[in-house]
């Protein structure tokens, strides 16, 4: 039992890194998703094209391939970023691309009459977006955004493959040190599960708070 408890301090240290990456990537991904999602509904063809290319590239290639590309190929162009930064930026870009589709879908689901009414009331384009469209689209974004957060949390495990000592990496280290494979991976899985449950509960609370009445 004692040596089971001894597994926890290093694993919790790893969990802290995992949470840091999840949080950092989420903070970057939200504005990225909003910008790319709105850009996809833009009237300007160039804006639409740029956002479509971004979304398709990051949704169409694998997250792990993206991590490796940024980690191994960018230094060849003379751009050497620390692994942690690569992890956060790539996961944010990946989540942002999926998030952009959520934003686009939610904006498209706002009834056209709302925009027409805004035009009739002589609101400017930015007023229409800020005061009419986004507030109504926001509640529809929440449930899929919550799922994406959990996907992001799960994707952070991939950064262990570019040498970041997150929860998964700690688990692997402990495994080679102690060979208590079963216990270690059960604890690691349960820790991820616990974080995911907390996230789900948080999103549920937000959903209740922003429900359209």
């Amino acid at each position, binding site marked *: 039992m004692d040596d089971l408890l001894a597994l926890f301090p290093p694993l919790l240290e790893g969990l802290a890194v995992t949470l840091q990456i999840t949080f950092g990537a989420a903070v970057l991904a939200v504005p990225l998703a909003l910008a790319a999602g709105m850009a996809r509904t833009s009237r300007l063809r160039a804006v639409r094209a740029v956002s479509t290319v971004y979304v398709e590239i990051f949704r*169409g*290639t694998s997250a792990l*391939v993206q991590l490796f590309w940024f980690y*191994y190929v960018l230094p060849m162009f003379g751009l050497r970023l620390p692994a942690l930064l690569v992890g956060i930026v790539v996961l944010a870009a990946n989540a942002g691309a999926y998030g952009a589709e959520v934003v686009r879908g939610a904006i498209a689901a706002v009834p056209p009459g709302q925009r027409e009414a805004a035009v009739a009331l002589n609101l400017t384009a930015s007023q229409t977006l800020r005061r009419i469209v986004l507030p109504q689209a926001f509640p529809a974004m929440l449930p899929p955004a919550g799922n994406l957060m959990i996907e992001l949390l*799960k994707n952070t495990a991939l950064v262990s*493959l570019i040498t970041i000592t997150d929860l998964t990496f700690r688990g692997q280290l402990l495994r080679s040190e102690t060979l208590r494979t079963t216990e270690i991976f059960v604890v690691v899985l349960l820790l991820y599960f616990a974080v995911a449950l907390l996230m789900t509960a948080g999103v549920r609370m937000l959903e209740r708070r922003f429900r359209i009445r």
Partner: protein
Amino acid sequence: MKPIFDWNFAWEILPTLGQALIITVQATLIGMLVAVTLGLVLALMRRAPLWIVSAPAAFIVEFVRSTPLLVQMYFLFYVLPSTGLSMSPLTTGILALGVHYAAYCAEVYRAGLEGVPRGTLEAATALNLSRWRTAVGVLLPQAIPPVVPALGNYLVAMFKDTPLLSAITVVELLQQSKMIGSTTFRYTEPLTLVGALFLVLSLAAAWCVRRVEGRLKLYGGTR
């Protein structure tokens, strides 16, 4: 000074990458076969009237969906052999992919099953069909076709998760490109090619899924 992207080198390594792509595609297809089968079992278990059947299925789906595939893969890779069950890394990886996506497929099937009108099931009871005939002849033919596009999307998602197999020593596309990189000290061409291959294939697959979706809409819609 070598060029930034050496097209000759890229052309040279393409056949090797093509070989590895076969493993990737193989893993995706067999993994999906496991996922759609196991997923259906889980979805049907979740509908069971006995909680002792439905509760574990619900827990498995939730647990598998909210923990990382990579850790699940490590779990199977390192823990299964200690129970005396040893499989090749590729088989282990395919099993992990299959189980992971089975949880997602179970949710997809659930939506399909919930969309079946109750009246048709009541009619099956009225006609005195056995439970088996009701399930196979009435329930599933109505539940499954509408969710095929959603399953297709998970096929594409699984394809994009196959690079994780490289973490458990399977030489699939990504691992092959890393091996080329470590022997030639050029990562740009192999890794960019891998990215491009994933992009082209997943866009093509997504296009096929949309076609199927369009066809299904002609026959009474999708759920």
